């Protein structure tokens, strides 16, 4: 069976299979589910960032109308700890009187209606014994964690190379805290029946939620079922099992009723993670003709007192350019802040801002065009391992992007381009995104009516998993797309990994590929039971699948339909499982490549008012094989909007004395609105990647990356001002 050589179903811009559900309001998100006898939970959060709960008065709440239970650290059941591996689960909530961050839960109230639950929650009085919180990333008293992920790298002799360089660029940069703010309020609905538990939850990782709940409540994992058919965005926020999920299950168990919790928007700022602030320092050495001789990149990011977070920023500088001397060092600083966590393109977003800004600074210092400078230092092989890339079309990204943008019209001198009263700036950035892929399983079934059902316990957070896996399965089984249903979001399906790290399409696609191949093999085995079958004696390599039939390659008439094979054997259906586990780079003899990209941005700056707007964005992306160009384009557009947010608007502001987030609403925390966003030009270049059988690379995060640097570089080109802190707000432009 040869596959994907001349694909019929993958590639073109197919509309989302779940589109009609979403535009009619029929798609059901976790908070759209309910039970007739359901109770409602409301949370009470700490109003100090460090110290202890000294006094709790819950009497007024307990006697308030409709209240069923009030849980605090004084009466909450003791739970086991959850998984500590990758993206650890926070410690059990309400386990003691310690307060480690402003917004930590100190109580949960359960009542018969949501109005009564939240009204009663406001009647709980908490007295504190405050301690002095650690809130500043520069606080020398804060614990530092060097090289927290083992990702630090050093090769050559960076110090000596910097001493010898013709030109050295040295600068410090900062990036603000950002908050994921998926539009869907995170929600959990938990229902116990003895030791079995059914949970609807806003998660990007249902199997992790199941494992965590089983572990923390001490019940068999097989009895826990997690459902999430649709989720209102996540951007990383749904990658952990947060305390509110645990509290909802706890409240349901304590009250003996199904309990639903819908987080409030302010709670979404403290309870489901955020992108940490960073301070970064970079030194780049180069020859006069623009050859990089040294890169030294150091980054510090924030992490909660008992938290973990994967945020390799300096690591970005180890994969981007050919350079003989590189040192990259990351560290974390523990503070009394809510948990930091993945937010779309963690580490890459901030690290790329620094590296690609510094490259722009170097191009200006050398008088070499920024695009030309990048091409002169193109990494033909993986810089750290020296292995060939599994695919890399970054050069084509630069060429196509520059052509479509009209980069050659750029007048190099800053402040030299104008349109009316507006200063015009052109800026660009390159991206070499990391690779990530986790093991995954899937199951494929073809039924007697010739329809197929393929499934895995993963999520579609809006990226289009339902659609592209339907296309892929249709391709691999030789069925029309309307004959294929893809199922997900239910832990009773084969386990799959998180929708994160731009890794799900490769992991799941490879598992679906394996399951579909195994299923066709099962049909061949079934057919072979009849020696007269035209498929007798055929192996996978001897056959093709089209029109609901398995037939000999090049001989469409010599085959049998799925339905025919099933009917002949008296079977209702045939199923097969498939799994995927990525090879190691050493096994494959190549460096697995993430996506690559080039961003070209035109900005306008009002020199008197400091107003900044983005006029045009051109993106050229190497995403390997694109399964659905329409949806992949949406991923790039959406990421770009997030990148504009990071570059120009988003800043979670905390009070430096108390640690209270001062702008924890969508009216105060600015995100891009429609009027902030120009039309965008997106091109996909390159071809199938060699590392996985379907040739894909994830495009869910790269769209955000590079925007901060491209915009900052364009601002420099427009104004001559180098802004080394994002977001680039009016005050920073006017100073």
């Amino acid at each position, binding site marked *: 069976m040869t596959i994907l050589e001349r694909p019929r179903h993958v590639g073109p811009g197919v509309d989302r299979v779940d589109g009609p559900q979403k535009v009619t309001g029929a798609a059901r998100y976790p908070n759209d589910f309910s039970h007739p006898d359901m109770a409602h939970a409301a949370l009470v959060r700490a109003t100090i960032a460090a110290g202890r709960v000294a006094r709790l008065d819950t009497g007024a709440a307990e006697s308030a109308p409709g209240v069923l239970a009030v849980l605090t650290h004084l009466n909450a059941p003791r739970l086991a700890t959850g998984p500590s591996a990758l993206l650890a689960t926070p410690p059990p909530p309400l386990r003691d009187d310690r307060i480690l961050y402003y917004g930590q839960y100190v109580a949960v109230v359960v009542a018969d209606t949501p109005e009564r639950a939240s009204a009663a929650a406001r009647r709980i009085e908490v007295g504190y014994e405050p301690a002095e919180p650690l809130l500043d990333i520069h606080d020398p008293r804060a614990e530092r964690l060097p090289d927290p992920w083992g990702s630090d790298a050093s090769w050559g002799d960076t110090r000596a190379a910097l001493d010898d360089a013709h030109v050295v660029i040295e600068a410090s940069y900062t990036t603000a805290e950002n908050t994921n703010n998926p539009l869907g309020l995170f929600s959990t609905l938990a229902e116990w029946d003895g030791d079995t538990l059914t949970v609807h939850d806003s998660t990007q990782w249902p199997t992790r939620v199941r494992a965590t709940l089983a572990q923390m409540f001490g019940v068999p994992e097989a009895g826990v079922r997690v459902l999430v058919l649709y989720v209102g965005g*996540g951007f990383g926020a749904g990658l952990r099992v947060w305390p509110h999920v645990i509290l909802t299950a706890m409240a349901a168990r304590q009250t003996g009723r199904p309990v639903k919790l819908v987080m409030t928007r302010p709670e979404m700022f403290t309870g489901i993670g955020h992108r940490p602030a960073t301070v970064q320092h970079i030194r780049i050495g180069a020859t006069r003709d623009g050859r990089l001789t040294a890169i030294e990149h150091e980054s510090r990011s924030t992490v909660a007192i008992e938290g973990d977070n994967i945020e390799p920023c300096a690591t970005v500088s180890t994969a981007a350019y050919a350079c003989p001397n590189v040192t990259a060092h990351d560290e974390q600083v523990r503070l009394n802040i809510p948990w930091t966590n993945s937010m779309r393109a963690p580490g890459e977003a901030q690290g790329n801002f620094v590296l690609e800004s510094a490259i722009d600074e170097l191009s200006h210092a050398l008088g070499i065009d920024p695009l030309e400078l990048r091409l002169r230092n193109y990494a033909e092989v993986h810089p750290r391992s020296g292995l060939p890339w599994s695919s890399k079309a970054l050069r084509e990204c630069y060429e196509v992007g520059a052509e479509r943008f009209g980069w050659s019209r750029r007048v190099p001198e800053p402040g030299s381009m104008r349109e009316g009263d507006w200063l015009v700036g052109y800026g660009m950035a390159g991206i070499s995104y990391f690779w990530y892929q986790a093991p995954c399983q899937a199951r494929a079934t073809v039924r007697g009516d010739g329809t197929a059902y393929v499934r895995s316990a993963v999520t579609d957070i809006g990226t289009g998993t339902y659609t592209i896996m339907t296309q892929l399965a249709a391709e691999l089984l030789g069925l029309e797309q309307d004959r294929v249903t893809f199922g997900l979001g239910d832990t009773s399906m084969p386990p799959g990994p998180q929708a994160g790290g731009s890794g799900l399409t490769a992991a799941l696609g490879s598992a679906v590929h394996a399951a579909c191949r195994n299923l066709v093999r099962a049909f061949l085995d079934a057919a072979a039971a009849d020696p007269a079958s035209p498929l007798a004696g055929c192996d996978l390599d001897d056959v093709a699948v089209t029109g609901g039939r398995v037939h000999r390659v090049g001989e469409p008439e010599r085959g049998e339909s799925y339905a025919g094979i099933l009917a002949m054997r008296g079977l209702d259906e045939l199923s097969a499982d498939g799994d995927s586990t990525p090879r190691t780079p050493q096994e494959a003899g190549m460096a697995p490549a993430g996506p690559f990209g080039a961003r070209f941005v035109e900005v306008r700056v009002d020199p008197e008012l400091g107003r900044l707007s983005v006029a045009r964005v051109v993106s050229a992306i190497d995403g390997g094989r694109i399964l659905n160009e329409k949806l992949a384009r949406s991923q790039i557009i959406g990421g770009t909007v997030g990148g504009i947010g990071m570059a120009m608007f988003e800043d979670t502001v905390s009070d430096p004395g108390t640690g209270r987030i001062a702008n924890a609403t969508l009216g105060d925390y600015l995100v891009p609105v*429609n009027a902030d966003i*120009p039309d965008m030009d997106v091109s996909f270049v390159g071809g199938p990647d060699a590392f996985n059988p379907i040739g894909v690379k994830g495009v869910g995060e790269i769209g955000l990356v590079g925007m901060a640097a491209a915009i900052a570089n364009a601002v420099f080109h427009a104004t001559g001002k180098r802004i080394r802190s994002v977001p680039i707000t009016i005050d920073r432009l006017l100073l």
Partner: protein
Amino acid sequence: MTTLTVNGVDHRLDLDDARVTLLDALRDRLGLTGTKKGCDQGACGACTVMADGKRILSCLTLAAQCEGREIITIEGLGVDGVLHPMQEAFVRHDAFQCGYCTSGQIMSAVCLLAEGRAGSDADIREFMSGNLCRCGAYPNIVAAIREVAGAGGGHA
């Protein structure tokens, strides 16, 4: 008892709690969960519904204030299972990703046309800026509305 007229159907509701918003009444009491709660503070637009032909934020409207008003939600936009032209255009232009803001975007977009504010891309962008889309589908939302506006707007 309060009577809510939603999508042409009268619902008699025992509003035992004066704090119940129109949004919660629709979702929790009438089972019309297509209208979404994104902030409950009037800042995101996800809860946009039509009241007497105008777009309103149902999270900032008490259910008790809606007696005698004609409420249309996303569930009432199509006719006999046929998508409204705006719903069709949203699918065709991939004007959403996670889909959570989509009901509000579509209700807002249909009203935008009725308001006569979809004459240019700049107008569409400006007057759709009360509806946040965190997935960042804005260019596709503009394209969908532009197409429907150009075709005459469809029925409201």
